[in-house]
């Protein structure tokens, strides 16, 4: 793409113009600085308009209708599935299951593959940096089935302890389930290596891609992942839709998840025969307009280029770390820029992260404060909460400057 305004040809100004919300002023004269994309991303006009158009022109229920609208809606929904498959390089669109979000995708694996395959004493390996979405489903299943959960430790520098991982693999676990990128530390885990090690030890590997798929190129075949979970809302797409990718043989062998319309082949009063994949796992009317919106989000991301997005975020986070570390009393968590994605979690001495966030908001700067759905990780670092600024393709160095200025204001108020 021919672009200006940036040494690498990445035209942030042009990208920003695609996102209507970025023109918002939080108060008159105070423009929004949105630094909370790890929680959810903003949406480009193309995505909003595609869904709008769907409702104005082609809205219908799918799969079963024969009329024009139903055929168009079905083509839109199934076309989005193929688009997702291409994006993550899945061998077939039938390996792409639409769910509500990353959380439901992981629960689906726990409660179908897990219930069918895991029994008392079986071991599942997680990490200490997991989001609650990749902890609680396994805890529920562990309680039900008597599984044993083990955790790869997080080192002081924010990286996983790979030696400890190798040792845990000697326990012969059935599954290793880990986040591709930490939503708190920003750590990008060596997924390909971790999966290869899991496979050597006879375990399957589930990758929580909630923070990776939106931010850098992810190829399920290159990773050799058995399952990959992610959410549309974090990748310029709408709320209400997520994805589970799975290896075909696994999906075919798994029992169904929820029961109802569309996931069946045949229904009698007292029994049913499940449908083929992917439909077997999609009960009831799915998030149709949302799938179409996700397809548009992928088109948008690819028009910019995932590699270019990753590169841009890398520059922004490196600059953010440099600026934040200058501020007396600020402590930044996680590894150095080379090992991380666009996330900077920090604390400011003497000020609770909630108060940081609240005061920053009065300067238009939107960051997040709390445990970021990673309580065990915060406990490990001895903190109830952190403040987190996170970045995406539309963020600029000037926004980092605004963040830093506002933090100085916080210090003054609490000084």
């Amino acid at each position, binding site marked *: 793409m021919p672009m200006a305004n940036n040494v690498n040809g990445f035209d942030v100004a042009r990208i920003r113009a695609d996102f209507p919300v970025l023109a918002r002023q939080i108060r008159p004269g105070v423009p929004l600085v949105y630094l909370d994309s790890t929680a959810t991303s903003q949406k480009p006009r193309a995505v909003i308009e595609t869904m709008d158009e769907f409702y104005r022109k082609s809205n219908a229920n799918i799969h079963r*209708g*024969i009329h024009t609208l139903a*055929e168009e809606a079905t*083509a839109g929904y199934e076309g989005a599935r193929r688009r997702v498959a291409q994006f993550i390089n899945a061998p077939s669109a039938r390996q792409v299951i639409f769910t509500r979000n990353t959380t439901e995708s992981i629960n689906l694996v726990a409660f179908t593959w897990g219930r069918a395959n895991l029994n008392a004493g079986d071991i599942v390996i997680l990490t200490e940096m997991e989001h609650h979405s990749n902890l609680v489903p396994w805890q529920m299943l562990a309680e039900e089935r008597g599984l044993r959960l083990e955790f790869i430790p997080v080192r002081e520098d924010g990286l996983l302890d790979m030696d400890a991982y190798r040792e845990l693999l000697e326990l012969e676990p059935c599954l290793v389930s880990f986040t591709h990128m930490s939503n708190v530390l920003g750590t990008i885990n060596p997924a390909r290596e971790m999966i290869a090690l899991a496979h050597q030890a006879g375990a399957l590997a589930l990758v929580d891609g909630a923070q990776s798929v939106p931010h850098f190129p992810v190829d399920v075949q290159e990773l050799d992942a058995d399952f990959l979970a992610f959410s549309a809302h974090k990748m310029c797409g709408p709320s209400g839709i997520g994805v589970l990718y799975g290896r075909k043989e696994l999906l075919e062998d798994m029992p169904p998840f929820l029961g109802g319309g569309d996931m069946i082949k045949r229904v009698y009063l007292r029994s049913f025969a499940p449908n*083929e994949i992917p439909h077997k796992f999609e009960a009831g009317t799915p998030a149709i307009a949302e799938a179409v919106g996700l397809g548009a989000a992928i088109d948008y991301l690819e028009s910019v280029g995932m590699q270019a997005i990753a590169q841009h975020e890398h520059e922004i986070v490196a600059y953010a770390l440099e600026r934040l570390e200058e501020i007396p009393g600020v402590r930044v968590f996680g590894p150095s820029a080379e090992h991380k994605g666009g996330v900077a979690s920090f604390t400011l001495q003497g000020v609770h992260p909630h108060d940081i966030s609240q005061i920053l908001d009065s300067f238009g700067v939107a960051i997040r404060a709390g445990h970021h759905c990673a309580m065990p990780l915060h406990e490990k670092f001895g903190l109830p909460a952190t403040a987190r600024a996170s970045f995406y393709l539309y963020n600029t160095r000037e926004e980092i400057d605004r963040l830093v200025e506002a933090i100085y204001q916080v210090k003054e108020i609490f000084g």
Partner: protein
Amino acid sequence: MDDLYRELIIDRYKNPHHRGVLEPNDISFEDDNPLCGDHIRIDLRLDEAGRVSEASFDGHGCAISQASADLLVESVLGKTLDEVRLLSKEDILDMLGIELGPVRLKCALLSLKVLKAGAYGLGEASDDLVE
């Protein structure tokens, strides 16, 4: 009138050339389209050279599923099983001579799915066969 309902389709639906069952047979398979309840069974007899010498379909369903089955069964006469296995979605659409959206496509492809599952000797038919 909608060209979907080309005379050929209505005609084959009302007066199929190859409706029936073959007993005994060399290959027999049946399946249905869960979305609409259409049902197709296809029976084949092979000659000594392994070519289809007789073929028939039976079942019920919409004009498109039944006419496709009739045309498909007709087209395999004289073919070897290897040739049958090579039949694709495009062959069916060429025979029908029409364009179909994703839902109606399932009606048109049901007979191909049944035929190929039979030709491969599978226990169960799969959408993979007609993709």
